């Protein structure tokens, strides 16, 4: 009897709890949807935008089911039907807005198709043998990779291999290489040097450098070197994991020197250890890593960086992912102004050479750029300038743009943007190797 007396109270309390949780979901949903659609400049919203755009499909389902729950929980009141309709319309709107990145996927695919058609001709798919094509993603986007995580085969991984021990700095790399005989795989042991992002002050190899993609590419026959480099220690902190031992009073010259040192070590030591094909080398990086990718990839043959890199490496392509381009103004404000000594007036040559588009010439390797159209940290103009500079010199540069994609929107490889990106990336790597 005691139990019967309390059952309705318990049910009422449970319903109240569910109603509160549903309303909270909607309030958070409004905030997340705002972040998804409008660039908000405060730090937390900006950080959230990195992830919200990548999981909006899941959020869509959450808002849909919460709408049903809330409809069920409406008590018997006057105008119940009207309240029900209002909740339904609101919930459907919220869900629809969160479905926009998914709905926009065909636009990204069409952009990429157009870029490939211009670079390789309309029959570019015919250049890829069917045996190779069978190793690639069959379609630009699928729901199972989106909803259940990006599937990939296994590869060998060696972590924390030291390549630099100088001036008190010890730098390491992780290497991902294929398990199978490489003749069966499209990569043919081509090398990919991956440079992580993090505003030149933060970040690390591995966790901060899209390691699922490293593994996926290694399983396709590429030897992926995911490297550390010295970072500027300006005293700030970030949610991005950063090892203390790589931080110091470093400039861009130091960073390029250290990565250049890696290319030399690759030639003398690591190429033979990992059976890496130095005749086919790609450089890839995101954000600050994309800037360094541009500087190194396009400056490899520039007299300004003479002697810095190994001459044995044949750079076949660069892959900058949301790349900052303009040294002025990026390196004119504290703390990033410490990255280039002086200012654009007192040190114009350094500012010129650390602007990747200025390094473009006819002998440069082709490029494929990833750019989110909702990226308020590194806007589209940066990527467009690099593309224009390369195209003006007769070098192919494919700019793949993604509506609703914010900065760092490639971190979850199965998301709407990354799937399209990986589909074209693996084909670019094969066509250029």
């Amino acid at each position, binding site marked *: 009897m005691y139990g019967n007396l309390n059952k309705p109270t318990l049910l009422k309390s449970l319903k109240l709890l*569910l109603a509160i949780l549903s309303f909270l979901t909607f309030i958070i949903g409004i905030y997340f949807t705002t972040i998804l659609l409008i660039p908000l400049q405060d730090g937390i919203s900006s950080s959230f935008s990195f*992830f919200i755009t990548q*999981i909006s499909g*899941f959020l869509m*389902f*959450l808002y*849909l*089911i*919460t709408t*049903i*729950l809330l*409809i*069920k929980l409406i008590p018997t009141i006057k105008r119940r*039907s009207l309240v*029900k*309709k209002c909740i*339904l319309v609101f919930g459907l709107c919220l869900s629809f807005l969160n479905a926009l990145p998914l709905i926009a996927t065909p636009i990204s695919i069409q952009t990429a198709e157009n870029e490939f058609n211009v670079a390789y001709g309309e029959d570019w798919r015919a250049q890829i043998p069917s045996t190779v094509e069978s190793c*690639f*993603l*069959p*379609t630009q986007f*699928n*729901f*199972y*990779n*989106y*909803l*259940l*995580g*990006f*599937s*990939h*085969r296994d590869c060998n*991984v060696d972590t924390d291999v030291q390549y630099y021990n100088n001036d008190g700095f010890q730098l390491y790399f992780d290497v991902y290489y294929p398990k199978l005989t490489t003749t069966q795989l499209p990569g043919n042991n081509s090398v990919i040097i991956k440079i992580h992002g993090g505003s030149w002050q933060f970040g690390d190899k591995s*966790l901060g450098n899209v*390691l*699922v993609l490293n*593994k996926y590419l290694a399983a396709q026959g590429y030897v992926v070197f995911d490297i550390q480099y010295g970072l500027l220690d300006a005293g700030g902190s970030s949610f991005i994991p950063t090892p203390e031992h790589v931080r110091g009073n470093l400039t861009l010259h130091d960073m390029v020197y250290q990565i250049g040192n890696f290319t030399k070590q690759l030639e003398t030591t690591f190429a033979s250890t990992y059976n890496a094909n130095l005749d086919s080398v790609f450089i890839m990086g995101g954000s600050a890593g994309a800037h360094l990718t541009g500087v190194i990839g396009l400056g490899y043959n520039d007299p300004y960086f003479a002697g810095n890199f190994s001459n044995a490496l044949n750079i076949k392509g660069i892959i900058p992912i949301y790349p900052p381009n303009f040294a002025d103004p990026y390196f004119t404000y504290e703390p990033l102004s410490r990255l280039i000594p002086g200012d654009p007036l007192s040190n114009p040559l350094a500012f010129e050479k650390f602007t990747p588009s200025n390094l473009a010439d006819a002998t440069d390797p082709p490029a494929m750029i990833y750019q989110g159209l909702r990226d308020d940290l590194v806007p589209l103009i940066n990527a467009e300038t690099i593309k224009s500079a390369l195209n003006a010199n007769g070098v192919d540069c494919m700019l793949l743009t993604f509506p609703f994609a914010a900065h760092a929107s490639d*971190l*979850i*490889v*199965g998301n709407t943007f990354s799937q399209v990106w990986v589909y074209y990336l693996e084909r670019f790597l094969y066509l250029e190797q």
Partner: protein
Amino acid sequence: MLEKSNIPKKLAKSLSQLGIFLPILSCAFGILYFSFSVNSFIFDVFGVVLIASWLLNILILLIDDSYLNKSSVIGKKINRLTYYNIVSFIIGVLLITWGVILTAFILDGFLFVLAFLMIIIGFFGIEIISLQLALTTYLNIDNRGVWKFE
């Protein structure tokens, strides 16, 4: 509008039949997918089936809520089931979301296994509760007094 619209009983029956078929098909694909995790055209079909079964579950929930006679004994039971379904669906989606995020950053070890389990439990959990709701709806669709179709 939802209560008063005249969705035929036949349509509700057909949807619940489809609601039985899709989760079973999705589970079968899921077992294949988790056993042989490769990218293939076959799994493109799986992706569509998966999305369709989730959306259909939401549609059946909406129909049940609109046409169920909650004052009847069976109606009450089905109504309670819809609550369990919704809460389980939310937990399932959250499990998958966190699992997918974790597997994007961790390649091995305990956390990776945990994340993988979160995805599997979330996926099969949603499919099983969808199947249960569709089956219950279908088996009771002809019961007099349970629905407000008449």
